[in-house]
């Protein structure tokens, strides 16, 4: 029993530990813990935003990390990065190392390689790290806007100062407006305010009344004209009637013309036959003439030449 218990416990411990180790080993293998690594050196003006263990990204993929940071004698920050051998192909002599400091979020350390045909980055060379600072960029972009805002506030200040100044332009405008509204309130109408004289206003009223009479008369005239033109016995209906009759007659003429055309075509056909007949008669007469001539030659004794036509 004791042996059985020991065996079971031993098996449990061994199997479980093996499972755990296998899991951890697989994880370590997949994470590249057993892969040989290449070390590269970089230099930077500042170590701000950099830290040991910071990942190095290429096209959004983690390909390495910072393993060491130290200050050189010249005051430059020396950065040692470690990249697994399988990712060493992305590290080229013309690769650019960038530390991107976004406006929001933590800095991102990345390598940008555009030419994969250039030579591999040497472990002895020291590449320069470029810093891209979104905050500074944003400040630079905002600076002109801030200057414009400052100008606008200056203008607003001047405007408000002008408003507050009793001798200022705005005060003058307000005074004029006040006078205008005062004048408007003392007149009977806007027209009187515009022309400035009451008699002139009366004259304009009289003219307007005359104009109204004239338009009334013109209206009556137009009504009468309309009756004569478009009335029951007006000109336009009569013209329409005549035109309709004309159209009917034209239809009939059309038919007649069709018949005439047919007759003329028939006649043309007959003419062709007559021409043939004529040519035949002509040839017959010619033949007869030739015969008569022949007879005249052969019968000289005949005093009276008679030819009997067919």
């Amino acid at each position: 029993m004791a042996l059985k218990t020991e065996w079971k416990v031993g098996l449990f411990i061994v199997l479980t530990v093996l499972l755990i180790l296998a899991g951890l080993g697989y994880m370590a293998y997949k994470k590249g813990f057993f892969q040989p690594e290449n070390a590269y050196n970089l230099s930077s003006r500042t170590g701000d935003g950099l830290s040991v263990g910071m990942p190095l990204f290429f096209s959004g993929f983690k390909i390495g990390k910072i393993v060491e940071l130290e200050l050189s004698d010249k005051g430059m920050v020396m950065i040692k990065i470690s990249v697994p051998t399988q990712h060493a192909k992305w590290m080229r002599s013309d690769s650019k190392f960038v530390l991107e400091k976004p406006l929001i979020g933590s800095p991102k350390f990345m390598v940008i390689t555009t030419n994969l045909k250039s030579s591999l980055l040497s472990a002895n060379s020291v590449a320069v790290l470029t810093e891209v600072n979104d905050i500074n960029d944003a400040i630079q972009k905002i600076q002109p806007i801030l200057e414009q805002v400052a100008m606008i506030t200056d203008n607003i200040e001047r405007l408000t100062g002008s408003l507050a100044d009793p001798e200022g332009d705005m005060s003058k405008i307000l005074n004029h407006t006040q006078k205008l509204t005062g004048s408007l309130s003392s007149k009977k109408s806007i027209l009187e305010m515009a022309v400035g004289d009451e008699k002139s206003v009366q004259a304009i009223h009289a003219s307007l009344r005359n104009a109204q009479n004239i338009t009334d008369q013109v209206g009556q005239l137009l009504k009468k004209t309309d009756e004569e033109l478009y009335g029951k016995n007006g000109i336009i209906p009569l013209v329409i009637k005549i035109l309709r009759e004309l159209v009917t007659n034209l239809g009939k003429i059309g038919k007649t013309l069709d018949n005439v055309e047919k007759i003329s075509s028939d006649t043309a056909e007959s003419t062709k036959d007559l021409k043939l007949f004529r040519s035949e008669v002509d040839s017959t007469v010619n033949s007869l003439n030739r015969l008569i001539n022949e007879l005249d030659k052969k019968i000289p004794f005949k005093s009276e030449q008679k030819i009997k036509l067919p």
Partner: protein
Amino acid sequence: MTTAIEQIGRSGLHAVRASLDTLAFAFKILARMFDVRAYNSAVRMVLINQIYFTSVQILPLFLAVAVIFGAIVIGIIGQYLIHLGLFDYFGQLLMGFVVTEFAPFITVLLIALRSGSAVNAEIAVMKVNKELNTLHVFRIDEINYLFLPRILSGILSIVLLSSLFSIIVLASGLIFSSLLFDMSMNDYVTALLASAKFSDLIVMLIKCAIMGFFIVMIPIRYGMRATDELTSIPVSVLHGMVNVFIAIMIIEVVSLIVVSSISKFI
């Protein structure tokens, strides 16, 4: 009013004294744990038996619980993440919640309920039956012979069973995520590996060891407090188990603080 304040002060002092006694006892056990002379053949035999009772006997139930809980938790987490459009965080949640929090917690609960209460009752019964006095008479060190194997068994069991629970949950997660969410094995493994951190796993193992230590040490401490009366046995078990749960909560909170502090530095 004065009596009430005195009562509060007395309770406070009693709580502090009890905590200090428990800590002193814990240090005493820890010191003995690293003493090689403590591990004689009798202790080794008790240790093997304790591991057998705590880990091997519970194994079928434990494996079934791991598969069932794993399937349920992964199903719920996956569904919620899909519902919220955050399925990219599936691996992170599995590693951050299931492996480092859920697996140790369920394991500790199971072991505390099964073995912690048993150890508490066992020590209390031995105290009532004066078996501890008998050990003293025969000059057998109770710490070496009784307490150390049980506490070591608790530590080892929690660490191994938690790890086993995590492995089983992740393995069942592979099957269930394939069935429920049509997730390929490669995607699943990639998501897990992307979220897995050795530091988290080490913290999880240390947390398991500390929990294993306390969920056995506290019941032993409270079992030792039993008087000569039989009725003191359930009282000691009750107090022991309540304090075990308080200890689990404290360790959970402390471990969360430690993990968050580590993740800030790394």
